[in-house]
């Protein structure tokens, strides 16, 4: 598969602050690629560099093998869905969608026909004459999507596109976007701080932290084999422990809360084979519905969270201050770098 976009040694500084340092990655054509990270981690800067709203301080950005680092945004064959949609308030929905085609000097009849088809595709065909201000948030989001697709870009950039929607709508739009990606076969690059969104939609996810990429992997690999403590904690929730609790070296290990089991060990009893464990003191239990989160603290003051099925009779015994043993299968434990 050919490369859609590639970052080569990209650095971005704003005055004295470094927003990105030595970023290298490439996105394949037709891939759904997500850039995930907390705010200020550099993921949005990366998107703006691809769109051309900012330019790299060092390094180059290549689009299908061509260096586009210095091209202004209006010369790049990529289009963006903005976080706040950025629809033009003085134009109708149809004119908004047709805007890119109008700028490209396409005739009125032909561009309006195309815009109408796109609006039909996002199920807003009847809203063409309305102003953006007359639409709901979800509808505006779909207009922004139609507008960004009108010029058939090589890459569709999505900047936190679902951030402003409520939970139900967001989940529906996630499925819709994924479906759309499959139908169009375009390269999608999504920026999000919501790990659930990245995991559920993307083929591959790049996790950003403090201006660099911690790990690029498939959602499954990110979750099951996080390489760093940051990734383990940011993608899903994880307990990060010092290896010194079990063996000599101080390398960190990660263990997901759902893999942790709790028991009371009577004297002379041992934890089952192929498991490791630590003695802990229960701090609190939180009922979450199907599961109950049990917070406990190990000898070296490391806190651990375990997700126990709420139906487990063991839970009734776990009161604050209770001594217990936390254990898990060795294979579920991940060594961190």
């Amino acid at each position, binding site marked *: 598969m050919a490369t859609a976009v590639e970052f080569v040694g990209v650095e971005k500084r704003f005055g004295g602050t470094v927003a990105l340092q030595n970023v290298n990655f490439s996105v394949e054509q037709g891939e759904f690629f997500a850039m995930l990270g907390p705010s200020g981690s550099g993921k949005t800067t990366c998107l703006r560099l691809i769109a051309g*709203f900012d330019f790299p301080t060092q390094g180059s950005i290549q689009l299908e093998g061509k260096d586009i680092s210095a091209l*202004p*945004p209006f010369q790049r064959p990529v*289009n963006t869905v*903005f976080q706040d949609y*950025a629809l033009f308030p*003085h134009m109708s929905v149809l004119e908004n969608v047709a*805007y890119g085609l109008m700028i490209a000097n396409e005739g009125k009849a032909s561009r309006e026909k195309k815009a109408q088809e796109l609006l039909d595709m996002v199920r807003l065909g009847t809203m063409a004459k309305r102003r953006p201000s007359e639409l709901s948030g979800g509808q505006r989001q779909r207009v922004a999507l139609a507008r960004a697709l009108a*010029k058939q870009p090589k890459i569709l950039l999505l900047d936190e596109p679902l951030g402003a929607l409520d939970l139900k709508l967001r989940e529906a739009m996630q499925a819709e976007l994924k479906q759309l990606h499959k139908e169009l076969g375009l390269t999608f690059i999504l920026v999000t701080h919501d790990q659930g969104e990245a995991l559920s939609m993307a083929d591959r996810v790049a996790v950003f932290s403090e201006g660099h990429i911690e790990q690029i992997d498939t959602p499954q690999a990110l979750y099951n084999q996080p390489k760093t403590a940051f990734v383990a904690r940011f993608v899903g929730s994880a307990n990060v422990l010092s290896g010194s609790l079990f063996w000599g070296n101080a390398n960190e290990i990660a263990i997901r809360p759902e893999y942790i089991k709790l028991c009371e060990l009577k004297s002379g009893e041992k934890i089952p084979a192929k498991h490791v464990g630590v003695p802990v003191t229960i701090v609190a239990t939180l009922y979450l519905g199907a599961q109950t989160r049990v917070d406990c603290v190990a000898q070296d003051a490391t806190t651990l969270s375990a997700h126990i099925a709420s139906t487990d009779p063991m839970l009734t015994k776990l009161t604050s201050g209770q001594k217990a043993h936390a254990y898990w299968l060795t294979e579920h434990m991940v060594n961190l770098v």
Partner: protein
Amino acid sequence: MQASATAIQAQNKRTWTLLLLLFPALLWLTVLYLGSLFGLLWQSIYRLDDFSGQVVHIVGFHTILQLFTGANFDIVMRTTAMAVAVTIVAATLALPLAYTMVFHAGKRQRAILYVAILAPMWFSYLVKVYGWRVLLSREGLIYWVLGRLGLADSLDSLLHSVPAIGGASLASSFLGMFLVFLYMWLPFMVLPIVAALERVPQNMLNASADLGATPWQTFRKVTLPLTWPGIIAGGIFTFSLTLGDYIIPQVVGAPGYFIGMMVYTQQGTVGNLPLAAAFSLVPILLIMAYLSMAKRLGAFDAL
């Protein structure tokens, strides 16, 4: 039952508090302002008896129709033409200035520009008008500079040959008067445009560029339409201030009355209150026409 009575009492109390707070403003707006304006305009349906010089309290359109005759109509047209010219040129000058302030100037440069625009407003109006008269006079700075450049004669021949802008010298020409109006009202045009440009979200401009528009196309298709309300607001100032001013045409410029001067002399020296009232009706009607035209041209579509 008891509870709802309490709720009604509380509601009443709120209404009274609100009315009490609004009372001074309402009194000012309705009685003092609108009342006296209406009282003034009411005068225009009376007429002045030419022999006795007394106001005849008979309702009719005689006085208002007088506006459309001979010299009176010239005054209306002259003032309107000046107001239109000042508004158009002020907008043309203010737009690039405001655009630079909002999108290109650094923090410091922007502060300096703000001060440069606002500082003249801190000085006395009369001082500025008379200062301009000195500047524009034959002995003034402008003639001196043009003289040094060898251009003073061409200015004079321009002023003598073109009737609409001309006059004996710059200080007694419509061109001179126009320059003073432009200087005086330019800040009133710049500030609303700056405010309007500041409200254009950066993302909107990015979106336009993202869809392939060059900076100039973005300006024409996005920035300018979103700025129209500000330009129109600035135009209300420059237009109505020019229509109502009676000092500048008196101090600078070619002979010939303006609406403001006419109102001033008719109600004072001449004592023809009905005609003064009829003249003061003109700016109100023109502003209304201006706003309805702006609305029809879609200036408020972005609001």
